[in-house]
């Protein structure tokens, strides 16, 4: 396909090989190519995440369309205050993760680590609140699927409404899978904080932090949609 390789080109490749930075993998030509590739790869991964959740949103839409009353009744038993607080918590964590990237771009490692740790704390807070919400439901016999058997005032009447279990099944599956993503995100962020602390990153190279940030924002975005659909409307 090509006629030949100009000798000069070969040489330039060799020189690059000699002086390439430590993070540059051999099959890439430049840091920029490697960075762009990683970022495109991450975006592609993020759309797989979105499509993964899309099926749950479709299930939600289908059943809500069929049973608006049951969904409204079931939704009203969720604690919108805790939901709102959790929304703010996640939004704040998005801010802190964005700040961590800002700081590493400015080569301020200490502030980067602090922002990442703040994100970690907020993510933990989110899970704690979620835990209390789940427990409040379990106490009243609100479980996903077959185990659904509402008890106690404010819940018993749900037993008489058909398709309420569907709402809670979807609620638990959606928030559950979202929760799993939060846990994975916490793992990644801890790792990033540790590596940042160790001094792996600089304004020259901080791709892993940026990719972790992108992932974390997607977790936030999914919650942005879950919150009004499950708690409010």
């Amino acid at each position, binding site marked *: 396909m*090509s006629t*030949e390789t100009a000798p000069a080109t070969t040489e330039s490749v060799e020189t690059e090989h000699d002086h390439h930075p430590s993070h540059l993998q051999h*099959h890439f030509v430049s840091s920029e190519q490697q960075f762009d590739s990683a970022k*495109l*790869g991450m975006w592609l991964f993020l759309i797989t995440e979105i499509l*993964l959740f899309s099926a*749950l949103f479709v299930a939600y839409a289908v059943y809500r369309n069929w049973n608006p009353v049951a969904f409204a009744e079931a939704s009203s038993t969720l604690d919108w205050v805790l939901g709102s607080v959790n929304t703010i918590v996640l939004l704040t964590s998005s801010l802190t993760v964005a700040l961590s990237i800002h700081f590493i771009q400015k080569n301020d490692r200490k502030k980067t680590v602090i922002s990442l740790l703040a994100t970690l704390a907020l993510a933990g807070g989110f899970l704690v609140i979620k835990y209390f919400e789940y427990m409040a439901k379990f106490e009243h016999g609100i479980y996903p*699927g077959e185990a659904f058997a509402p008890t106690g005032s404010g819940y018993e009447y749900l037993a008489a409404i058909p398709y309420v279990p*569907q709402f809670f099944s979807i609620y638990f599956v959606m928030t559950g899978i979202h929760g799993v993503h939060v846990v994975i995100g916490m793992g990644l962020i801890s790792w990033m904080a540790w590596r940042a602390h160790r001094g792996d990153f600089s304004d020259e190279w901080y791709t892993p932090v940026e990719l972790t940030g992108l992932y974390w924002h997607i977790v936030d975005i999914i919650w942005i949609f879950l919150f009004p659909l499950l708690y409010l409307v």
Partner: protein
Amino acid sequence: MEAAAHAASQTDAEPRTYLNHETSLWEWLTTKDHKKIGIMYLISLAVVFLVAGLLAMAVRLELMSPDFSIMSASQYNQTFTMHGIMMVFLFIVPSIPAILGNFVLPLQIGAKDVAFPRLNLASWYVYMAGGVLTVTALLVGELSTGWTFYTPYSSQQGTAVIFMTGAIFVSGFASIFTGLNFIVTIHKMRAPGMTWNRLPLFVWGLYATSIVQVLATPVVGITMLLLILEQTLQIGIFDPALGGDPILFQHFFWFYSHPAVYIMILPAFGILSELIATFSRQRIFGYRAIALSSVAIAMLGFLVWGHHMFVSGQSAISSIVFSLITYLIGIPSGIKIFNWIATMYKGSVWLQTPMLYALSFLFLFTIGGLTGIMVGVLGVDVHLHDTYFVVGHFHYVMMGGSVIALLGGMHYWWPKITGRMYNETLGKIAAGLVFVGFNVTFFTQLVLGSQGMPRRYYEYVDRFAELHMISTIGSFILASGLFLVLGYALHSLFYGKKAPQNPWAAATLEWTNVAAIPDPHNFTSTPLVTRGPYDFHKADEVFGGSGDGQARGDGAGSDASRLTPPEAAPSAPKEDASA
């Protein structure tokens, strides 16, 4: 020891190749070389194909006549279920991208490797994990859901379903990783001068495939997860006994599984373009149309899943919309067929084994496509749905399309992968057996189906007996052809003639700029691309420099000792070519 071996090979004047470099088992299992990962996939997939193929033979044997029986109804159901699941999820979906895509893609675009070599290796391990789960599913109980897992039947079955759906969930990630990797590789890793318009069409095919893999596979993952939850917790999304909707499951399932058909066929289209162009020594007629129609098919492929559900009880309006879009997708496929045939016009058609497979593909895929149009016709599909007509149709597409193209591609790239030639005569005989056996097996099934024979039947009424007998005989011819291929492939590995660098006189980078057996880093120096992939009239180097010398491209007659990269042609890149 490694060094000693190296030194020895140096003294033998044998160049370093990816096959004699880092050869221990551990080095293979931890390799990040896309070529080796391709071969690891080749071995795993060959095992799956063999097992699933033997299951198919068992099915055909059982159905040979109404009285003859080798297994019980329950065993029969498990057999066709495993045949379907293994062939679809574990063989055809990964096959071409994972084997040939992995091996050829970086070579064709002039890259040292794929963008994420570690992810590439991970994808193989994830795939193997899926395989382990599949075996577990077989061990823990009966799996007899059919490959479609329709609820509520599947949600009432035992734990085997949980493991199998788990296996599909896991191996889905292998598919996503491969697709993601390829998209980034094609976007970011192309050699200088390799513009989008100069991409070989196999690369375009893989690009379109990867889009589908990335967009569709997560949905089957979550669907399988929901099915597992339906079984374990009875969440009531799909099971009507719990207030769920069984048709919703079909939507979820086909949102992946219809595009999956394009995951299977689009890379096959890509291989076909390579074969037709190379063996006709002619520029692909309508390069742009073929390249863009692949992407169009990939996108439109998401809009037609409901045509599997015309009699399922879904709304009539969606049946009608899905049917209409189904026809629109037939058109780009038709364009490709016409363009491939037109490519032979005023070419120089060389009927070597890969080209025989390419022509078989044109024959078989045309039948597959046209029967697809027939089952897409709303009124007619009501009669044909879930009969052997559908079985025949999708075998014409999946086997007559994907597998035949894979066979063609394997023969075509075999010299590059192994450095050996296979026996051409046996190759042609096998191609003939496969072609005849395939048609005898599956054309009869088309007739059976339109006569009313339902699919997934363990027993059948007497009026179908003759056709079933013919179909079984055909399957034996087909199997003998495939075993012949296996036989001479293994023979060629050890005793085959050493392959020259470019036995087919092809004009893409993996033949022109890569040694007979590629270097571990693919290219000794980064290629500079100055012409299109099929511009044979500009490809002097293919013809030994100036084009009037020895046709060293023609494999059989060429000197096999030529293992070093060709001398650079003395001429500088042509001005007009780089424009």
